């Protein structure tokens, strides 16, 4: 993929891949193009060259809404919930494109995040940071996506909540969803990753299995603080 905003290319020929039931983690320094790569996959910026392929189908020409309908779900880093809607309404809005019965999916989300069931009639904006992230992930799961993309899901939440959130993400992965995570907390994220990408200057600097990257001395030195 190559592209960016306006004239400057932020992405230079980088590639990210994920398989069903696996987690790919994208790490890298600030300005490396991590979030941009995600926006490109979602269709929020147009690529100069390269393509986005979902289940063998080229979806590069589709609008973000159409890609959502095709099975991509995205949890933005900020503003990722409808703060003035209740928890349950947030989930219903996630399923806006579906015309079948969504109650089963709502129950599945409540099973994954039991606390949301207790708070289902509360405004999402009144919840704690960790619970908001659960609402955000739950909303994205409502389309029953084949690929779930998370942009820094642990930004601004406490370490305990972060561990819990990663556990839940692994549970989601085990249901067969492909997951792409962009993370600042590189160490924890890589430890749950099946595959990792280290992005620098919009290029794949290192790629490999999560554990390999964690043990790679160069990666450790540059990004994981030794």
């Amino acid at each position, binding site marked *: 993929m190559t592209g960016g905003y306006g004239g400057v290319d932020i992405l230079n020929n980088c590639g990210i891949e994920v398989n069903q039931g696996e987690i790919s983690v994208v790490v890298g320094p600030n300005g490396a193009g991590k979030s941009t790569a995600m926006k490109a996959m*979602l269709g929020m910026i147009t690529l100069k060259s390269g393509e986005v392929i979902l289940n063998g189908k080229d979806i590069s020409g589709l609008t*973000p*809404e159409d890609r*959502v*309908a095709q099975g991509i779900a*995205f949890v*933005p880093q900020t*503003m*990722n*919930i*409808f*703060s*003035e*809607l209740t928890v349950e*309404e947030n989930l*219903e*809005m*996630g399923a*806006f*494109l579906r015309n079948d019965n969504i109650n089963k999916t709502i129950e599945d989300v409540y099973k994954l995040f039991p606390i949301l069931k207790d708070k289902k009639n509360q405004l999402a904006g009144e919840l704690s940071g960790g619970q908001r992230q659960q609402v955000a992930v739950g*909303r994205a799961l409502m*389309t029953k996506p084949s690929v779930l993309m998370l942009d820094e899901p642990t930004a601004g939440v406490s370490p305990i909540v972060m561990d819990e959130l990663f556990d839940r993400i692994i549970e989601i992965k085990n249901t067969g969803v492909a997951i792409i995570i962009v993370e600042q907390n590189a160490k924890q994220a890589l430890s749950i990753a099946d595959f990792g990408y280290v992005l620098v200057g919009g290029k794949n600097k290192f790629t490999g299995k999560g554990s390999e990257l964690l043990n790679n001395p160069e990666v450790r030195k540059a990004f994981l603080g030794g």
Partner: protein
Amino acid sequence: MENFDILNALILLANFVIVPAISYGSQLAIAALGITIVYAVLRFSNFAHGDLMSFGTMTAILFTWLFQSLGITGGVLPTALIALPFAIVVTALLCLLIDKSVYRFYRKQKSHAVVFMIVSVGVMFILNATVRFIIGPNDRTFFDGEKFLIRALDFKASTGLEEGLTIKSTQLITVIVAIITMLLLFYFLQKTKMGKAMRAYSNNEDLALLSGINPDRVVMITWIIVGALATIAGVLYGLDKSFKPFTYFQLLLPMFAAAIVGGIGNPIGAVVGGYIIAFSEIMLTYAYKKFFIYLLPEHLEPSGLTQFLSTDYKFAISFIILVIVLIIRPTGVFRGKTI
């Protein structure tokens, strides 16, 4: 006799303050709902709302005349109530036309809210001129049917009190139609998928797009609702008082005051704000002399009118309340969006 004095005083107050304020407040509430919904979903202050109301009312009057000429009337009810649904359809179509030809261009440009506001002033002038061109600038009464629910004379005769209570049928119609409108609107916003999508779009536009909510649909439905609300508010006001295009333009101030006092962008706030403005306007311009004469012993009776402000200043009251609210609590009584 003492008891009768208190009763007389209360009837006096009901007749000149409470009943008129409830009906005026209901009209303001429906009007303010239209303003607040444009603000919440389309994110701009729609200065054309007053003239949209005037256009809707004009359409209702034209339909009323048509029905009357065909011999169709509402019997004891005003014929305008039969004309109302037709007027709503025409006004909603006009809203969609204006959006397609004017606002959509600025939406594509992602123009600033101030630009939208100025554009709406332009739309206001065009609507204003169109209405005057079609129906003329004069005062028109289009009410027919039974005028009074309770007449002052009948009331006096049946109760034996000195003060009479008048309730016009338009006042009752206003309250009933307003309640039905509000219930339908709140049901739509809270319970239906499209209503929730509208609130979601208003709350977080980007996430709404990510959820697959079609912005064009949301905008379309918003304008249909706004057209309906404007027509209902305009017809109720026109039935109760009379229809004069300039009056509707003047209503902009109390309408915006109502929306902002309640918390702009918040529908419940718009309703509450409507009543706050109506009650303040009427209570502060009413001359309480007679009221006090009933209640106070003779030597304490006021010599003046005991009127806080002359009725000429009624628009100043909306303005003062608006300023006070913006200084003390800019988000309004109910948590609206800060402007």
